[in-house]
């Protein structure tokens, strides 16, 4: 795990620095850095109001999705599990859309993330209840598909009945996932929730390792299996809910990152969580940089880029698993 973390820190820091220092303003790196510290002039505004929230949120959102994917895959013992596929992301999205639809988001900025986290908790809680009833992994994945479809349908319903075109476009754009025009308060709200979520997931690591042997063997090794499930469900809801509230629906990060890192962490679920958080931060920061560089007008959205990269990867993974079976 330590080696994987060391190998990931450098590129993550490098991409974060690029994300922070490179932008359409053509200000020098030293001017931006000066602006970050003194907050004066145009450099200060760009550094504090635009670049810092954007880079910070890319790191926070990516680490939330990466760690959530790793923990869900460990819990379900299935490399296809991730917040998107299990319906957690779309329910967080539904929560946020409802907050926008009913105008709560305009009433208080804290209500949009709160609704997103409630949505994530509801879906994760439903999955938890199903797994307590003894539903197998296949049932959970199918339940995730059903939850996801229901959330998408309800979101579409909210869109159809949106009171004005502006509200509708706000919801649609938000659903595509982006880090544009975020503020420091978005970052300040998301970061502690994501940190708490990841800490909860990391604390479940030992139990996830034991679950490699199945639930009864894990129990016989002294692991509180229900407690492990609860930690993962709440941790994923906190991290993914806060991330989705801040950046909208950014899919497939939680699928791709843990899968790529697993061979480097000895296939042990506990060792995968923190490296996946770092890997997710790296992937989202790099994807966001790609969005800004390829299309400075930013009609291209972050969530679209990660889906364009992730969906083919998902197909490849399914085919690979079929071959191995």
């Amino acid at each position: 795990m330590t080696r994987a973390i060391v190998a990931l820190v450098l590129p993550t820091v490098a991409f974060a620095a690029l994300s922070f220092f490179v932008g359409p303003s053509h200000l020098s790196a030293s001017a931006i850095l000066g602006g970050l510290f003194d907050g004066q002039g145009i450099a200060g505004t760009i550094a504090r109001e635009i670049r810092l929230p954007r880079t910070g949120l890319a790191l926070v959102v990516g680490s939330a999705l990466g760690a959530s994917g790793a923990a869900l895959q460990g819990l379900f013992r299935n490399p296809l599990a991730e917040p998107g596929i299990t319906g957690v992301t779309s329910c967080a999205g539904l929560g946020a859309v409802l907050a926008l639809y009913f105008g709560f988001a305009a009433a208080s900025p804290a209500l949009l993330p709160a609704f997103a986290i409630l949505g994530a908790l509801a879906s994760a809680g439903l999955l938890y209840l199903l797994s307590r009833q003894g539903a197998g992994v296949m049932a959970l994945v199918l339940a995730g598909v059903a939850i996801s479809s229901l959330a998408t349908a309800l979101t579409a319903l909210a869109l159809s009945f949106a009171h004005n075109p502006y509200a509708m476009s706000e919801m649609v754009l938000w659903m595509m996932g982006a880090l544009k025009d975020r503020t420091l308060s978005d970052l300040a709200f998301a970061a502690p929730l994501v940190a708490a979520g990841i800490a909860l997931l990391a604390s479940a690591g030992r139990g996830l390792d034991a679950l490699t042997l199945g639930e009864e063997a894990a129990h016989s090794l002294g692991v509180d299996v229900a407690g492990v499930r609860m930690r993962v469900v709440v941790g994923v809801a906190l991290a993914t809910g806060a991330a989705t509230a801040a950046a909208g629906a950014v899919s497939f990060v939680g699928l791709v990152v843990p899968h790529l890192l697993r061979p480097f962490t000895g296939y042990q679920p506990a060792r995968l969580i923190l490296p996946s958080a770092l890997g997710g931060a790296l992937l989202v920061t790099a994807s966001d940089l790609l969005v800004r560089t390829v299309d400075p007008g930013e009609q291209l959205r972050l969530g679209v880029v990660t889906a364009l990269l992730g969906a083919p990867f998902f197909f490849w993974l399914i085919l690979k698993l079929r071959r191995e079976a």
Partner: protein
Amino acid sequence: MIVFDNVSAAYGLNGVGARFEAGIVTGIVGPNGAGKTSLFRAALGLLPLAGGAVRIRDRALKDWSREALARTIAYLPQGGEAHWPLPARALVALGRLPHRDRDAKAIDAALERADATAFADRSTSELSAGERARVLFARALATGAPVLLADEPAAYLDPAHQLRLMRLLKEEAARGTAVAVTLHDLSLASRHCDRAIVLHEGRVAASDLSDRTLAQVFGIEALRSEGTVVPWRLI
């Protein structure tokens, strides 16, 4: 070491009285659905009891903490599996979880005793069924528990691996461990177990593999050779 006193459970057990003693291999046999696995699950606290009591080292099961119980009973579930292709040594190290350490000596010793040292550094996905069974067995040994419950460990193994496994179980018993093993193979049970518990419909039907037991419980006749039962034909 473990005493089952008139143990009943909603599913599987109907007033079972049995003991697993230190230093011997207790073979648990019976037709499918007789309650063999349920008996182990009752000892592990995985099965809510409808009546009776389980005592482990003279203490009621409910008085044991989860971790203390995990250090006392090592459990090898049926059709043992590893969901991720862990290196064999990392899988064996999971046996140390109840102690919250990764005691390298205990892990090496377990690999050695299970005759699995040769492939300790290979991925479990690259091992044959026999090798994987030995690694999973080493995982159970790594806990260093005074009780070992093995549920159908001989299933899916070729005859040589079955015999090796039974020898390993006897060696563990010789160290003072209370070994209990469920078996469908009556010849293995009759030849390698020190004592038999024959379960039928959730009850203890017999403690031997006499012709009468085989006829009543299993509905078969057997050939016998040097004390070994060979299931032969239906009656």
